């Protein structure tokens, strides 16, 4: 439901990450990691991103979203497993002290930049 705010943050971070030496840079692609437990719907985020990216160096950028499964680890027996249903009990010892080690990501990993001037020179 808050995908627009997130899309705007992504645009802001991406623009701030363009190296200063690229004067005429265009961002071609934004690589994201989104955990399955994050409160984000990828399709909705893509839609919002298109709007948030308008009139910015990201206007033609593709949003590449790698969805990260929810992986938990038992604090008692250290077993790790991928959670597909919302049950956070150890599948081995049934213990309840379970740590979520991935699945909450909402991370911008990298951007792929094309410098129009450099490309022309090639």
């Amino acid at each position: 439901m808050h995908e627009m705010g997130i899309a705007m943050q992504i645009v802001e971070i991406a623009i701030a990450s363009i190296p200063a030496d690229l004067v005429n840079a265009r961002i071609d692609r934004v690589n994201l990691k989104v955990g399955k437990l994050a409160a984000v719907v990828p399709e909705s985020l893509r839609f919002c991103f298109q709007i948030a990216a308008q009139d910015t160096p990201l206007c033609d950028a593709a949003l590449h979203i790698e969805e990260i499964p929810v992986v938990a680890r038992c604090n008692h027996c250290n077993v790790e497993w991928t959670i597909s249903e919302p049950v956070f009990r150890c599948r081995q010892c049934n213990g309840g002290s379970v740590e979520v080690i991935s699945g909450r990501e909402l991370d911008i990993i990298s951007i792929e930049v094309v410098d129009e001037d450099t490309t022309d020179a090639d």
Partner: protein
Amino acid sequence: MLIDMYKTQRYYHHKDFRKPSHFHADKSVVTEGKKRGAREIKIVRRVLDVNDAMAQQNREMFAEKGVFVVNVMSSPGSGKTAILVKTLSHITLKIRCAVIVGDICTSNDADRLAGFGAPVVQINTDAFGGDCHLAAHVIKTAVNNFNLDEIDLLIIENLGNLVCPAEFDMGENLRIVVLSVTEGEDKSLKYPLMFRVCDAALLNKIDLLPYLDYDRKTAVRNILQVNPGMPVFEISAKTEEGFNSWIEWLMQKIHK
């Protein structure tokens, strides 16, 4: 490198959720481009790290002022405001409280919460369908309405929404999720993140149980599947049944 970074991000787990992120963008690393003319620039940053950083500032400010902060979240209509009205009536004689209440529009909730000796600030995110959650910067601004030196407990009533507020740290010490027996028994299974990040659940409106087919045992079992060990208080904001144990637990947390 990336794997190590994720290992340090243990604050994803609800118990560690409040720890600050020691997580810095390295904007200077430029790797080989994926296609002709393109180069990949590593960023590796939480998209919401602006919020996380501000939440940490809030947390430090609250700690310095000795203010304990509780974030109350739920779906719309589960009875957050009614619970807070009754909670305030129990505790305002013992400790100095203040309330920040968030809604998309209207000041109805603030009006209901006024008159208990606790200052109330209403936040409207937008009059026609605005933000679906409160975030750290909103709280930072809202607390300017209070003298924090005169407050022991700040209660934040979040917007009715079981999805987005779970993602936004505001610098609180305690998170409470409210659900009611007029909703499904499977709320926790449908919104696992909310039930993972919260410290306790209040199952409200139990005075209605004789008129419903609601299975409270199933509801509690479902909550404990998502967050084993989570305290669940079965209460009625109307009759105040169950309030003694809820208030006692809350006061223990505040004085810890």
